[in-house]
């Protein structure tokens, strides 16, 4: 039954439908929570709105200039140090919520980007340069520096483990 619906409308629309049904149930059970949730949703949507053109602009650029051959060279199986460097710094410099980057990564994966580089990119999204002053304010300089350094090292470890486990499970 669910498979039939999934095939007909697509998993993405099925997911959205489930969320809308969940909201409907929340609205029927507790209208105040429903109202607050809608306000939170509008706030979040407003926040990501400026990032949307950036992400789809990057996807357009990747479709224009990056063919699978080039992606394989820089982020594929034989990319080596270049691949780690791009995924670490790409992750650190990328802005906005993590889920905004899934479409671009999915596009690059189709073109040949390695799972380890995707995992490394996503792990480095935890390092937020604009929020560093806040982290320093709450936890101090030494904590911020040690944590950042360890996160960068572990992003590579994370990528390697994910790649290995996916291969083993295949």
């Amino acid at each position: 039954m669910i498979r039939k619906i999934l095939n007909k409308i697509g998993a993405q629309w099925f997911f959205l439908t489930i969320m809308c049904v969940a909201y409907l149930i929340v609205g029927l059970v507790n209208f105040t929570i429903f109202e607050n949730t809608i306000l939170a949703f509008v706030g979040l949507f407003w926040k990501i709105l400026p990032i949307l053109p950036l992400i789809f602009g990057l996807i357009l650029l990747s479709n224009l200039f990056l063919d699978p051959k080039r992606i394989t060279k820089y982020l594929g199986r034989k990319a080596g140090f270049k691949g780690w460097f791009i995924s670490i710094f790409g992750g650190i410099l990328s802005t906005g919520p993590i889920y905004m980057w899934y479409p671009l990564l999915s596009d690059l994966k189709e073109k040949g980007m390695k799972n380890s580089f995707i995992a490394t990119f996503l792990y480095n999204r935890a390092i937020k340069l604009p929020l560093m002053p806040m982290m320093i304010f709450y936890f101090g300089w030494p904590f911020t520096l040690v944590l950042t350094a360890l996160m960068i090292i572990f992003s590579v470890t994370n990528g390697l483990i994910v790649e290995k486990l996916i291969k083993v499970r295949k």
Partner: protein
Amino acid sequence: MDLVEAWDQGWVEVENGNNMNPPRQAAIKTLNSFKQTFPIIVGVLLLVALVITVIPKGVYPKIFTGNKVVDPLVGSTFGSIAAGSPLTSYIIGGELLNKGVSMIAITAFIISWVTVGIVQLPAESLMLGKKFAITRNIVSFITSVIVAILTVFVLGFL
């Protein structure tokens, strides 16, 4: 022919390898990607908004027991479920620190907040593959505890 029809026809042309110029091909591919992604983004936003509203910030200090072994796991678990700006995790972490919660637990909480995403898991699975999403989140959960222990260990020498 309306826009959707033109778009769909264009996509069929791309798929059939008909002679379209690269910019048009790229634009159609990007539009198709947008068409596929937009419902997922809206769905995730709805889920994040629901989690933010249902789990208020005041809940987090109550979940830590003071146990040095259990607290880092509790921190990682709740950091994985929580959603929203990482700034919120710093503020909650700061409050927890003042309440005497162990630094390892707070660090695990902050790390898993941004590296593990239970709320985003459906979207990650749909776009990057179920196997990848589950493996990455499990590995990130484990490393959040390891990095937290190592951070506090290294800080002990400074």
